[in-house]
């Protein structure tokens, strides 16, 4: 049974069913399948790999304890996203306000789509957003979730999700513009 359950080809529903029956290997398969989703949501929202790993471990331990209540593969994925985002929000609320020193960030004015500096800067700026805006943005762009789904995951009204996303993007734009100007200024490029 275990050898079959640990097989990569086993359908999600079957794996969940086998794991619920107490098969450790099947549960291991669930962990391996979803670990990057859980870890990445936590990493993007906390900006700390150690904390993200701790959150991922807590989430999967909680899943193990609540496995009997998970009804389907879709329910499992939604449960994991929901539990992870709520854990992240709890963690962010316990932390004092994070300050990202903008002086340390510089961008060239001609950012190409492959500009890793831009993406690093963006990730650091996302970490400075208010927790719900941050998580809404991560669920939208990392998980490619639709707004009603984000609303259900975060337990907030659809209108609030829309305004969070709008504000988050506006904030990122203005901060990027500020960094771009200071970067251009410090490199001596005056227009």
């Amino acid at each position, binding site marked *: 049974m275990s050898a079959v359950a640990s097989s990569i080809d086993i359908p999600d529903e079957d794996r969940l069913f086998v794991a619920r029956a107490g098969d*450790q290997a099947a*549960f*291991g398969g669930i*962990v*391996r399948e979803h*670990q*990057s*989703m*859980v*870890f*990445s949501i936590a*990493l*993007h929202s906390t900006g700390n*790999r150690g904390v993200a*790993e701790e959150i*991922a*471990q807590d989430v*999967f*331990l909680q899943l*193990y*304890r609540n496995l009997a209540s998970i009804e389907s593969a879709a329910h499992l994925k939604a449960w994991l996203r929901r539990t992870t985002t709520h854990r992240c929000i709890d963690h962010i609320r316990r932390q004092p306000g994070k300050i990202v020193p903008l002086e340390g960030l510089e*961008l060239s004015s001609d*950012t190409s*789509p492959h500009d890793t500096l*831009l*993406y690093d800067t*963006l*990730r650091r700026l*996302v970490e400075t957003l208010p927790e719900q805006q941050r998580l809404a*943005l*991560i669920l939208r*762009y*990392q998980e*490619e979730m639709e707004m009603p789904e984000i609303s259900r995951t975060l337990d907030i009204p659809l209108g609030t999700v829309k305004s969070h996303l709008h504000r988050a*993007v506006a904030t*990122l*734009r203005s901060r*990027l*513009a500020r*960094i*771009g100007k200071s970067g251009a200024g410090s490199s001596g490029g005056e227009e």
Partner: protein
Amino acid sequence: MNLDEKQLSIALRRQPAPPGLADRIMMQIEDEKRIRSRFSPRMLAAAALVFLTLGIATVHEVRSNLEQRRGEEARQQLLLALSITAEKASLARRLIGSD
């Protein structure tokens, strides 16, 4: 700076989990399972039943001791009252007899 959705998708794309994360999680779950099997629900229920029985027995014992003590006190008071009454009656008899 123009920020578009594609840039956000790239910046926030899924990051791979660190190597060994799943194994560490499974080790934690193994520990949890060991603890659970050491204290199975049946064992916990049995322990709770023993504690409950002991608790009830203790309460019953304390209550019966208290009642016994109260009874003893009442008995002592009654004996005292009877002895006083007998003493008075004997004194009265002696006074009537002397007349």
